């Protein structure tokens, strides 16, 4: 099956003064219709830059996509004009962001913003667009949608705003929704509600979801497949269950071990020692080497992202020792 979105060798650089940083460095990703791909990794690993690059929303300057291909519905997005790109943004690919408090324009009503989101893509009368907006507000669980249309963002709670953002992103029923940490800024009960809502809408519209998060609990609950990012590269990719059962990259193992879980029977959480290096100072060779407990001489050379096990398992790892890494009892046990 042809993927809906196919990213190859995506490379995005930021330049400030004489310093250049490859925040995203040769990323490959495939997303199929209707599936949920989770993109995980610590802060600064390049998740947001990857997703903004897909919609070509990287602020230029200082950023620039310097290489790669982004095929979506048979077209290379990187070769489209700005005008053609605008017909895809919000129509075929939509996006929701982490900060619901600032993502809505404070001087326009919710109704004005929803109606604009519709009418920029579809020739529809204002009254018709308003009805559609009200329908979507109801769908995302907002009571009294008619009143909400006339409200301004500052009159809404964080959870309500994120619901409005979801309605705005989904109102044109895009083929792909990119959600960059959609629940991080919300408190726990609201988080669960928003995730439920996204699952429900996905089922309804068969929209594919690229879900960016650093919460593996969210991943376990939502994702079909997972891509793990570290220092601008994909380091491991696998179907969700497989990734939790048999993580093959030391970084993935570190992430799982450092993650709190409800069914926790481990004695304590072990954070990964050290931090993600900044994009202008990636180490040569394996980028995880300075923090890796399994490091050997071989790791001075950059490992390739290569299949692990049978190719049809869809498991790929960027580590010289992927095959020889011992099976992890803690990781295997934790996904019971």
């Amino acid at each position: 099956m042809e993927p809906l979105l196919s990213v190859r060798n995506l490379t995005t650089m930021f330049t400030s003064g004489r310093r250049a940083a490859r925040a995203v460095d040769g990323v490959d990703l495939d997303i199929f219709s209707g599936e949920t791909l989770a993109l995980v990794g610590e802060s600064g690993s390049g998740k947001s830059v990857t997703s903004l690059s897909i919609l070509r929303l990287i602020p230029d300057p200082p950023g620039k996509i310097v290489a790669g291909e982004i095929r979506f519905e048979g077209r290379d997005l990187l070769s489209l004009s700005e005008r053609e790109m605008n017909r895809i943004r919000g129509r075929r690919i939509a996006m929701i962001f982490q900060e619901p408090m600032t993502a809505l324009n404070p001087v326009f009503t919710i109704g004005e913003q929803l109606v604009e989101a519709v009418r920029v893509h579809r020739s529809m009368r204002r009254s018709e667009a308003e009805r559609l907006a009200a329908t979507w507000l109801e769908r995302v669980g907002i009571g009294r949608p008619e009143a909400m249309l006339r409200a301004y963002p500052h009159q809404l709670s964080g959870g309500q705003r994120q619901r409005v953002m979801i309605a705005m992103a989904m109102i044109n029923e895009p083929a792909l929704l990119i959600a960059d940490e959609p629940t991080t800024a919300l408190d726990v009960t609201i988080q669960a509600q928003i995730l439920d809502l996204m699952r429900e809408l996905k089922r309804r519209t068969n929209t594919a979801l690229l879900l960016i998060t650093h919460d593996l609990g969210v991943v376990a609950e939502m994702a079909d497949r997972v891509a793990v990012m570290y220092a601008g590269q994909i380091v491991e990719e696998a179907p969700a269950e497989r990734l939790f059962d048999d993580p093959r990259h030391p970084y993935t193992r570190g992430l799982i071990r450092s993650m709190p879980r409800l069914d926790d029977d481990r004695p304590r959480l072990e954070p990964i020692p050290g931090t993600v290096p900044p994009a202008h100072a990636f180490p040569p060779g394996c980028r995880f080497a300075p923090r890796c407990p399994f490091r050997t001489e071989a790791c001075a050379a950059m490992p390739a992202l290569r299949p692990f096990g049978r190719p049809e398992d869809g498991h790929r790892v960027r580590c010289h020792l992927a095959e020889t890494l011992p099976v992890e009892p803690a990781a295997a046990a934790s996904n019971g």
Partner: protein
Amino acid sequence: MKVLVSRLFFLVFVVLGVTFVTFIISHLIPGDPAQMIAGQRASPEVYAKIRAQLGLDRPIWAQYLLFLQGLLQGDLGTSIRTQQPVLDDLRHYFPATLELVLFAFLLALFVGIPLGVYAAARKDTVIDALIRLLAVSGISIPVFWYGLVLILIFYGKLDLLPSGGRIDPSISPPATITGLYVIDSLLEGNWAAFKSSLAHLVLPGITLAFAQLALIVKQTRAAMIEVLRQDYIRTARSLGIPSRKIYFRYALKNALIPTTTVVGLAIGALLAGAVVTETIFSWPGMGKYVVEAIGYLDFPAIMGFTLIVSVGYVILNFLVDWIYTLLDPQIRL
């Protein structure tokens, strides 16, 4: 309602304050209008009679009370120079000033704001640098200097535009409807008068507008740059809204909130600036009238002018407050 009452109180307070200060200052200026009217060689009797006529023989506080009393009846006194009621004089000169100030205001607004938006949208490019250069020169070069330069070039060298008056002397002005020649001649369908009066507006209009235009450009650019960094602009882009619309609708409405303050101040500055501009371009408005009044120590005329300008200024500020509420849903009067 409560707002309206407090605003009215404020207006009364301003009128009292402004008239009081102007009154004191104009009486502290050395010089004696009675002497000027009577001439150097008038007899003491004639001089005393003129002083009494003008009310100058009474104590200052009595003169001030008299002035306030007249004010309550809509009487601003009689001009010493023209011997006409000040109110009639001002009414006569007001439309010319209004036309000039309005023209300059529209120029500053409708050229200044788009330039500010373009500069912000093209931040750190050549276009931005040029627009900023224009803004800096507008702020730092004195009005009379570029007024004279404009006259020198467009009237003196190129002979493209007239440099004085409101309309060509060979063309009769349009009948008074609004008092603004450009509008009245249009209403009348008088094409020649329209062209001539518009041409006469260009140089003084630009001269008067330039400094305020520069300030509006500067403020709009700064506000736009700040707004364009906000998350909601990224949201708008992610929805496929075209850049033009993002700049001129989504971002500008936010950027106009801080810019409105500058625009409000600009109107006041234009009224004040009209005095210099009208003098340079022999524009028959209130500014020219008051300059002549000052030369003549014409207290009632000076008071009347100051009063009208300050009341106008206060009312405009109310208007600005009201515009804020239209732009920013979080502000209520």
